[in-house]
């Protein structure tokens, strides 16, 4: 947004940046080896549904496209702030990111990029067995390391990585009880994924997302 359009009162809606999201699988591997954590298999896209038939048709199209490939769960929810969530479940992290990307790119390709707020990926502590297996993976083939990047089963998310579309950055969010966040854990996660992901440096933008519909 240029200073001129700002002063003329003609700010343009900001388009979404989708590319940075593909770094997530490698961050998941780093998290697994360093903290015994992994993607929980849950992820969601949050957007502001505008009025009008055009958007509703688009949304229905995306949903039918997602349910077509059949793998993993999918459900829609509306939160208390009036934002729409498309929640996707998939045990394979690559697949999960691809499906989330499908939602994002369909929306932004048809001109609704400015409506995208964020994507959220659930993180979970791996069961001790799986975490023990991970250090042993270095003697195994690379293929085993790759499968270890996914949880293999759906876990309950205890922490989240939030992707801000407009910034192309991630930030960690760890809710703790009712409307409290575990800042220490968030900062720890931030330093763990900092090499793999573009982390949001402006802490003011790490806004909380209470009552996430993402499992």
């Amino acid at each position, binding site marked *: *947004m240029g200073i001129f359009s*700002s*002063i*003329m*009162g*003609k*700010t343009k*809606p*900001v388009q979404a940046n989708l590319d940075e999201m593909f770094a997530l699988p490698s961050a998941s591997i780093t998290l697994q080896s360093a903290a015994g954590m992994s993607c929980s298999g849950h992820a969601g896209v949050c957007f*502001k*549904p*505008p*009025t*009008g*038939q*055009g*958007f509703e*048709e*688009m949304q229905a199209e995306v949903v039918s496209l997602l349910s077509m490939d059949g793998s993993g769960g999918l459900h829609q929810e509306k939160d*208390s*702030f*009036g*934002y729409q969530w498309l929640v996707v479940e998939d045990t394979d992290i690559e697949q999960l990111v691809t499906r989330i990307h499908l939602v994002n790119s369909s929306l932004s390709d*048809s*001109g*609704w990029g*400015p*409506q995208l*707020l*964020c994507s959220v990926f659930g993180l979970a502590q791996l069961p001790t067995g799986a975490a023990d297996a991970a250090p042993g993976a270095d003697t195994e083939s690379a293929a085993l390391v790759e499968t270890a990047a996914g949880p293999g089963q759906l876990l309950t998310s205890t922490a989240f990585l939030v992707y*801000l579309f*407009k*910034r192309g950055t991630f930030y960690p969010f760890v809710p703790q009880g009712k*409307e409290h966040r575990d800042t220490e854990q968030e900062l720890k996660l931030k330093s763990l994924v900092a090499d793999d992901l573009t982390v949001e440096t*402006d802490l*003011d*933008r790490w*806004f*909380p997302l*209470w009552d996430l519909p993402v499992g």
Partner: protein
Amino acid sequence: MSTARNIPNDHGLSLRMFFTGLMLVVLYGAVIGLLIAFGISYAVVLVFAAIILFVQYWFSDKIALFGMHGHIVTPEQAPQLHGVIDRLCALADMKKPRVALADTDVPNAFATGRSPNNAVVCATTGLMRRLDESELEAVLAHELSHVAHRDVAVMTIASFLGMVAGMITRIMLWTGLMGGFGGGNRNGNQGGGDNAALVELLVLVVSVVVYAISFLLTMALSRYRELAADRSGALLTGRPSALASALVKVTGEMSRIPTRDLRSAESFNAFYFTPAIAKRGVSLSTLFSTHPSLDQRLAQLSKIEAELGRPS
């Protein structure tokens, strides 16, 4: 103002507003004229006026918050307000302003602060109580658009330019007229007194007219900025009708609010969401109000609504 109770209705309110504004401008001009008459140079007066405006601009957030009894609230104190603003800022990719709450029943919101880095968005408890989620969001998106458009800076500069225009007119007239008549006066001193009085009167009238015109232009600019903020805000939330319904609700409520509250809020109209003056059918009002008429704002919003509804 105990006499205010005896006035049966306020048909002339907008008219009075106009003359109040005009008188303010005339007063401003008179003070400057007086300073000049005391032999203080134009440059000093201009610097003095600039300093006053600069202080107004630089401390706009503190002055407005103080005047409205608004106080900065933390996310813990107002989780709903913060939640809505957090999300809107992420959608618009802008820095989150400070959030304030004013404890008054006048349903309104305003944005202030000299730059987006120092911005404050303030909502009143009356607004939070009356509007539902999507309407509140629409109003806050409108206020955030004011922040993004740097409206405090633009309006301050605009009013300063108006003042400078008035002063330049004065200087030009003085030098021009004095130059013309002065040459003749130097030879014969007898008729000089008459001429000087006439010239002084002429200069006063012209400069007052220029001040008045710049005042009207500033008001017109303010109305244009309001429409621009309506538009950007509606595009941000994607729901122009939510803003329209908030406008209808708030302006409907405004006329029912006790006069005392209205008066205490009037001085901040320029950065308000809707002015705290009930809309009456005085046609002149469109010329000098800081905000466009409700009909005009609703018409624009319904146009945006139609644009969004078109299949992609």
